[in-house]
């Protein structure tokens, strides 16, 4: 059971930062709280008592998103369900609807934030690989002599390992900033124990942009989660496929390399097999999503999506 002495709901960033600075050791920031409540149960952390919880969900500055110069700034309070229901977001981040639909369920998606998912730094997080693929950064705020200052850091530098991040005392993540990929095809693959409510054993994300006239790949983004302590961006594979007109054989060949990168301590062989299929499927589905399905592609999820 999770208990706490104080539960704060600040409404401005300045208020939140001051509370966080003054909070006793062991206090926690929460957003959706969908991860911390199941964590504080028997078999995981057990009974947990916190001096204070600071709930960021009412902090006005963390709401909504803005778009500028090919980048989108997603406030830390953006919840997963928005990637399904907001048409503009769906167009700007074409892999995110597919990621969100596999994330937990409709009800938890109303509460759970993308920023919270990233900050928890679970190797099995669904949301982190897509943000790797979108060259994501985190915007982080802190108080310097009473004034709010910000820094940004690449998500790939921010996540140090399972549960470990670069977040410093007194800091609060205020936004996720990443590329907008309008006109790309996107896809997300996930293996878990069941359809809803589970974290990934393995997940893969792809975003592909094709040249309108030649059909060659002008940009491709690939990332994998669940196979190593932090997600992996498949830069070698991306290079291999950029500028090419993709064929089935080329995709099969490209999927060999990532399987070698699997470093998980458990079920490694299983994950290698899955990864090979997933990279193929992610690329094929992303092609289908931008309206250029391979004529001889294997029938996969998107056949029904």
């Amino acid at each position: 059971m999770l208990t706490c002495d104080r539960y704060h709901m600040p409404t401005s960033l300045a208020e939140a930062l001051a509370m966080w600075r003054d909070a006793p050791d062991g206090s926690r920031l929460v957003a959706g709280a969908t991860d911390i409540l199941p964590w504080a149960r028997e078999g995981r952390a057990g009974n947990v008592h916190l001096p204070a919880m600071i709930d960021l969900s009412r902090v006005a500055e963390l709401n909504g998103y803005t778009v500028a110069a090919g980048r989108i700034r997603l406030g830390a309070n953006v919840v997963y369900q928005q990637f399904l229901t907001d048409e503009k977001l769906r167009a700007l981040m074409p892999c995110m609807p597919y990621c969100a639909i596999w994330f937990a369920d409709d009800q938890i998606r109303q509460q759970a934030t993308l920023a919270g998912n990233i900050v928890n730094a679970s190797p099995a997080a669904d949301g982190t690989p897509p943000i790797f693929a979108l060259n994501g950064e985190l915007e982080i705020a802190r108080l310097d002599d009473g004034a709010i200052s910000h820094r940004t850091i690449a998500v790939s530098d921010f996540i140090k390992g399972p549960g470990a991040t670069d977040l410093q005392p007194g800091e609060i993540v205020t936004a996720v900033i990443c590329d907008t990929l309008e006109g790309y095809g996107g896809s997300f693959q996930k293996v878990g124990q069941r359809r809803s409510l589970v974290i990934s054993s393995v997940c893969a994300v792809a975003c592909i942009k094709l040249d309108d006239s030649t059909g060659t790949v002008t940009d491709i983004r690939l990332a994998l989660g669940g196979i190593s302590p932090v997600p992996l961006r498949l830069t070698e594979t991306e290079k291999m496929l950029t500028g090419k007109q993709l064929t089935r054989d080329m995709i099969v060949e490209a999927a060999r390399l990532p399987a070698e990168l699997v470093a998980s301590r458990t079920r490694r062989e299983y994950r290698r097999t899955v990864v090979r299929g997933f990279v193929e499927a992610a690329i094929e589905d992303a092609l289908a999503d931008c309206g250029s399905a391979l004529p001889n592609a294997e029938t996969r999820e998107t056949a029904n999506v």
Partner: protein
Amino acid sequence: MSEQTTSEVQLDFEINGRSMTRSAKTHQRLLDFIRDDLGLTGAKEGCGAGECGTCSVFVDGKLVKSCLMPVAKANGTKIETIEGLTGWGGDLTPVQKAFHKTGASQCGYCIPGMVMAATSALRENPRADLEEIKERLGGNICRCTGYTKIFEAVELARDVLSGEANATVLDADGAGKSYIGNNVRRLDAPSKVSGRLRYAGDMVMPGMLHMQVLRSPHAHALIKSIDTSAAENLPGVACVVTADDVPGEDGFGVFVHDQPIMARDRVRYVGEAVAAVAADDALTAARAVSLIKVEYEPVAAVFDSEEAMQDGAPVVHAYAPDNIVKHIPIRKGDVEQGFADADLVVEQSYDTQAVEHAYLEPEAGLAYVDHDDVVTVISPSQNITHHRHMLAKIIDRPINKVRFIMSPVGGGFGGKEDMIYQGMLALAAMKTGSPVRLVFTREESIISTAKRHPARITYKMGLKKDGRITAVSFRMISDGGAYGLSTEGVMRKAAILSCGPYNIPNVQIDTYGVYTNNTPSGAFRTFGAMQSQFATESHMDICAEKLGLDPFEIRRINMMRDGAITHTQQTLGSVSIGRVLDAAEQASHWQAGPVGMRGPQRTDLGGDDTRPPCTLGARFRKSGDDDHQEVA
């Protein structure tokens, strides 16, 4: 947990159309607040971890899991619970009526959450198709129905709400002359679809205390001492009970009374109850539990049933030095001769695993001693009369001073036949004079209650070339875990049904239930038949393949027919296996042939009646023709 103050949060909110101002404890979740403080118990706690959806409520129009929402988040919101769907005292909604109509509620425990999820699905997209409905209900688990009737209900409600179907389709069908072949309305459905039905964990009594249980961290250990003084001295604690509080002859079980109310001198599995605290609230009781000091001396434990049968294995119960709970032998004909007559003898072993019942309602009970000194226990017990007799002996009271009341069972499947917590509640009620309630967490339910028996079955079958079975030797060793529970009955049933619906001239059957230091095994749907049928039917397929026979054919060759005599000497007036095989063959569009014929040659795979692979994304399907909205 450390020393702590518990502060409060102030809440202004609207619930089911009423404005309220209340204070709540900071640690409460929205679920705790609406159930415990507001008395709205339609939302349930099936898991407490966001997995099951029994707690679903609307907050500002969006469905959320109230077990994952700290109550402070509800400040300033509009909350709608299952009780609010109808308005206060109003008529059932079309969704609720549709659940009633299709028989979608069985145990009913998931149903308030399901009705909420269905309502949400149709509010979000009034034209949601079946795939989208499934997806939107993905966060809610039902253990009884298999979902089909639930989805049927949501589609029916959708059609009524959209005007495509007349509201009269929700009315009861006319009763035919026979109940058989006609839909019969479930009498209890309105109470379930409305969330009005109160399960044991929903019940409250004035002055009620809350119980929490200390459980063993050891699989096998001697209890050297239990010091409850710090727990008893904690403010708010009414009593601590241990085995020492049992006034009569301790011991319960469905067949052998080998299990004490709480561990006595020795713990035999991880999760066994050692002591229990009754306090003003569950949090205080939990803190008191953490203050109980138990000195254990771990002893050798045994976790494999075959190892437990070996000489020199650790002994789990002194009365059974061979660790055998029950051995059921059955002999018919001459097995050695049968194998000698066979053209082919096939030997194979089969393992099955422990399975949790996972009813949506975790165990819960409420006990009190009434004005006439009658010790009363309310619980979802599947066996109240037996429990009553056992408890009378354990608490040393005449049978007319012990009463069991069966509360609605939120799923049982055999898992609620054992009296594993009712005794603790009775002892605490007797010791304090107050009503005492215990509600298990999901984790507690999984760790401490009976499972399906894991079994290892060694099968030997002799057959003629034409497929006729000449003999079977069937040896099943089942892990009964630390206590007997229903093991004896399960072993009997497994032996009786071991060879399936087949006529076999020579049979040798041995089933063994064995004590180990694993979680106890008990009753579970099929009661031993699942394990033996898994082995039998797998074995039939293997033998068919070896003989080059069609799997249906080998079964028809050996199946019992009307008038058959079973290996336990029962004459069967009529036998339906032939019709069952015909129906299964037709329904599966089975392509006749030996089982070895697979792959591209087969034409009967992936047909209309085959369940397609799991997909998601129905709500943003990009098909051309549709009347389907692009954005949900």
